């Protein structure tokens, strides 16, 4: 009986492995690992992600724990030392710990914002591209409208309306930045729509939503991954910008907030160990996201075109 169970589960696993989605995913993964650019930046991202996950646990101190010296006095703006490898802030907090704690809110913001951007972008892009006609016109005019809205000023206005807050800020960013992805995905959908296999599905009686979900979406996936990565990057940058402008929630210790605090204290020039680490990490994260996204999209779509071109070239 055990044998039968083992047999069954083995079969189920192999069937799962052969499922289209899984195979596409694995192929994407192996392509990612094969290219040098995506590999390197992928590793950085993994590192950053790990920081986000385990940051608070490996931090030597609490993020709001004031460091006191032997004499009981507050250790303000201390240079890096053995006890505090990245020094301390003006409030006496350990910079390293704050950096480690700060990873999580920064990354979470990126993920939430990126998801919202790609979510709205895909919905609008696919619908406009595939359905076409009136619907396309209306959706694209709407997109144009959002394009016309200048990002930071509009964000400030909306924050004034909705109030300063971590989630509010992410929501506003997501609600504005989907515009770029929608356009591009729409044009991809337009192209894919004309390909014979779509016509074949229609000819068999497939419904519109079915075709969009089962045929168009998987084929725009590489582009979607790219815009997800870009969306995450932009969200992180704009969150940091908002923090710097002073309209972010100061109680959530993201990296952007750290830079703001360093700036506020007036010692940013001399206390390099305070502002530099978070600034560097934001840059690294966003760069990795952009490069990874681009590289991924390049490699995956390049593969598809490459085969066809090679077959026809000789």
């Amino acid at each position, binding site marked *: 009986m055990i044998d039968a169970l083992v047999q069954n589960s083995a079969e189920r696993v192999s069937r799962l492995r052969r499922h289209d989605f899984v195979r596409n995913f694995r192929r994407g993964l192996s392509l990612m690992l094969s290219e040098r650019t995506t590999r390197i930046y992928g590793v950085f991202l993994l590192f950053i992600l790990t920081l986000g996950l385990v940051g608070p646990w490996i931090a030597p101190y609490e993020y709001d724990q004031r460091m006191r010296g032997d004499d009981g006095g507050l250790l303000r703006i201390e240079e890096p030392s053995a006890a505090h490898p990245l020094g301390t802030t003006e409030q006496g907090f350990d910079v390293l710990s704050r950096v480690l704690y700060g990873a999580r809110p920064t990354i979470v913001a990126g993920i939430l914002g990126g998801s919202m951007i790609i979510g709205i972008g895909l919905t609008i892009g696919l619908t406009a591209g595939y359905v076409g006609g009136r619907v396309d016109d209306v959706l694209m005019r709407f997109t144009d409208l959002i394009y016309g809205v200048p990002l930071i000023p509009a964000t400030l206005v909306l924050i004034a309306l909705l109030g300063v807050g971590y989630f509010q800020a992410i929501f506003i960013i997501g609600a504005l930045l989907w515009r770029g992805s929608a356009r591009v995905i729409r044009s991809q959908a337009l192209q894919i729509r004309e390909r014979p296999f779509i016509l074949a599905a229609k000819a068999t009686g497939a419904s519109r939503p079915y075709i969009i979900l089962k045929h168009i979406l998987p084929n725009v996936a590489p582009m979607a991954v790219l815009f997800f990565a870009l969306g995450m990057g932009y969200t992180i940058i704009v969150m940091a910008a908002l923090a710097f402008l002073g309209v972010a929630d100061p109680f959530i210790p993201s990296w952007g907030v750290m830079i703001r605090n360093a700036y506020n204290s007036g010692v940013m020039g001399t206390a390099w160990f305070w502002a530099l680490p978070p600034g560097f990490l934001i840059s690294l994260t966003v760069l990795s996201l952009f490069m990874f996204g681009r590289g991924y999209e390049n490699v995956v779509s390049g593969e598809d075109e490459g085969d066809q071109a090679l*077959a026809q070239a*000789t």
Partner: protein
Amino acid sequence: MSEPLLDVEDLTIQYRTKNGMLTAVSDASFTIDRGEYFGLVGESGCGKSTMAKAVLGGLDDNGEVTSGKIRYKGEEIQDYSEQELNEKLRWREVSYVPQGSMDSLDPLAPISDQAWDIAQVHTEMNREEAIEQFRRMFEVVGLQESRIDDYPHEFSGGMQQRAIIAISLFLEPSLLVADEPTTALDVIMQDQIFKYLDEIREETETSMLLITHDISVILESCDEMAIMHSGQVAETGSTVDIYDSPRHPYSILLQEAFPDHRRPDKELGVIEGYPPQTTGEVDFCTFVDRCPWAVEDCWKGAPPLEPVADSRTDGSTDHMAACIRRDEVHELYEEERSFGAADVEGATND
């Protein structure tokens, strides 16, 4: 016999790819004489387009001639620099008609301007002379002279292709390389174009290297031809010889597979398998897995292109085949045919 216009000798062309050196052409040899129309036929992956590009020095960036020679009017050209190619060869000596004319003409300039641009770069003529010569060529290809200042979009597809032929011929090159010049066109247009190509052959000494997958066009319009398979030249000779007595298994089977509209009941031959993609040195016959008459030795070295015994014409043309069994295969084939065993039913794996 005067020296040939184009002499390709043991040419090997490879592409640098992620998976190694992809061999597009392997030890290929053939010659084209002056005033001769030469057809190069083969299926996808056989290397014919690569060959065309190599003659013009237009290989893609990752392609290179790794061995062998291309001689034009006696001079080796396979290693010419871009500058040498432009000064000595392109347009004036060797010109090119590509597939899909629409992409080759600048939509923003009148045709006469485009012809003048080329004449400027490659010759010493002034504009009047160039336009005059172009006008004459326009007429030869059956287009109205008065229309030389029209824009490309004002012509139909077939006429655009003819305009391109006019452009490629007006500087009177000795060799015209045409890569699938009529594949994108309808059959009546194709015939119109070949009518003019026939006339051009009568009136000038221009040679043509015609590359196509359509063997009927070559059999009708060319004097000599070569059949390629997976980078190797399988057979060369006059079109008459190759039609009357094909000696390479691929030549035989390819002609069998070609539908003929005059005989709709003809049993179409099937060639099993598909042309292999080869990397590195090719030291076997690429047709071996598809050949019904293959033997062990076919794996032991690339078969050399050698003259065929007992050619039915008067022997003045070089009828050659790259097959170690070239002198027996046609007999075997005749036998099989008369026993009706040439068909292979059942599982195919094309």
